[in-house]
């Protein structure tokens, strides 16, 4: 194995570690939301520092590979993809932290019926599942897995679009629980962003493996 291949393998391994950490943040955030577990939410917020440290390390590693190895073709695309995935992961970590922060801020509990009618838990699970699948696609270098994510994102979009009306109605009928309802709307908005980040990462994986650029294409075209 060439020196560059060794460096690229290490870079991928570091990316997977960061990814696993971010996905863990999302999982714990979901549990914290369902159980209103503020300790768990604080744990999520604290792990954000580790995600940031990974981001800086991966940035530096990519810079070193460009400078020292002048990668080309698939190697170049690999480093470019990881550089962008690194930013996507850091943003996703920020989102997980933001959701955890809402959980620690909220005074009342989240009304179970509201969780049900907004489908926020389903949305959360879907977002986590997308993140897991994109990670698997990256690990196995399998673009067929990456492509599945584009369709799955439509479920997140659908839940997000319906949330406004549902929450507005709920607030009209539950004026004592407005704050929690607004926090929940913000969480839904953030989960929708997780879907977007997953899609961006799937696009990067397809660019890396197949040298195809899928940005700004329709879901139909992306899923082909």
């Amino acid at each position, binding site marked *: 194995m*060439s020196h*560059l*291949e060794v460096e690229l393998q290490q870079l991928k391994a570091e990316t997977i570690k960061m990814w696993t950490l971010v996905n863990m943040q999302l999982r714990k955030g979901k549990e914290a939301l369902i159980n209103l577990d503020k300790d768990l939410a604080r744990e999520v917020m604290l792990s954000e520092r580790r995600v940031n440290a990974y981001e800086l390390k991966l940035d530096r590693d990519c810079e070193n590979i460009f400078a020292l190895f*002048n*990668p*080309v*073709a*698939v*190697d*170049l*695309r690999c480093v470019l993809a990881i550089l962008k995935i690194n930013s996507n992961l850091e943003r996703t970590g920020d989102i997980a932290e933001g959701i955890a922060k809402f959980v620690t801020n909220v005074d009342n509990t989240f009304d179970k019926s509201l969780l049900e009618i907004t489908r926020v838990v389903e949305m959360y699970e879907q977002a986590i599942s997308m993140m897991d699948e994109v990670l698997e696609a990256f690990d196995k270098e399998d673009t067929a897995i990456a492509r599945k994510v584009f369709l799955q994102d439509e479920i997140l979009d659908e839940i997000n679009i319906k949330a406004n009306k549902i929450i507005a109605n709920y607030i009209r009928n539950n004026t004592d629980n407005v704050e929690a309802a607004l926090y929940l709307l913000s969480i839904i908005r953030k989960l929708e962003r997780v879907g977007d980040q997953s899609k961006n990462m799937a696009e990067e994986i397809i660019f890396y493996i197949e*040298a195809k650029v899928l940005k700004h294409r329709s879901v139909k075209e992306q899923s082909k």
Partner: protein
Amino acid sequence: MFKIESKNVDFFYGSSQALKNINIAIKPNTVTALIGPSGCGKSTYLRLFNRMNDLIDNTKITGQILIDGEDIYAKGVNVDSLRKKVGMVFQKPNPFPKTIFENVAYGLRVNGISDKKFIEERVETSIKQVALWEEVKDKLKKSAFELSGGQQQRLCIARALAIQPSVILMDEPTSALDPISTSKVEELIYELKSKYTIVIVTHNMQQAGRVSDTTAFFYMGELIEYDNTKNIFTHPKIERTQNYITGRFG
């Protein structure tokens, strides 16, 4: 119209086939890089363009090589005229044991030009073209061997330019040079492109990326892939090309 066209070219050293069915069309005012592992046939192919391989015994070419639409291997082609049109620069700087001035003037003199003023002007223009004038203008009568390796190589390029070719062949022109001289020669190649069609053999992948518009990858006498350099170095179509440029086989 293409400046150089190679149609179904096979080339043999005795019974051993060095090139197999090479088809390439090169546009004027471009730089084409020939890359590939040692022994792949890229230098042999380069030397076909000015019939340098004619000097080797027991060689045979089939197919056609056209420069400006004319078959350079057709009967009756004057090889001296061809080489005036197709200049060449070699791996190691090879100035003649003459003064700096005479090195550049040599090609003109052997072509029967004796007008002193004309020769002086052409020598100055050629040396200026290779960005060497400021460095040598006060020592034109000194031996070319007094120059550094990088300066000697640029002088050799000036010598090739003096007879005003339209094609310049370069066989690993910077492999014997330090990084500063290499970058000067690369800058020069970039500038010369506006007036000449350049074909360069290089072992340096990054150099191929930096200087060329199109790249041809050779392997074991075959042309594996020929495309825009950007495509070759970002998403080559053939796996063997990718393996070579990423260093997965040597």
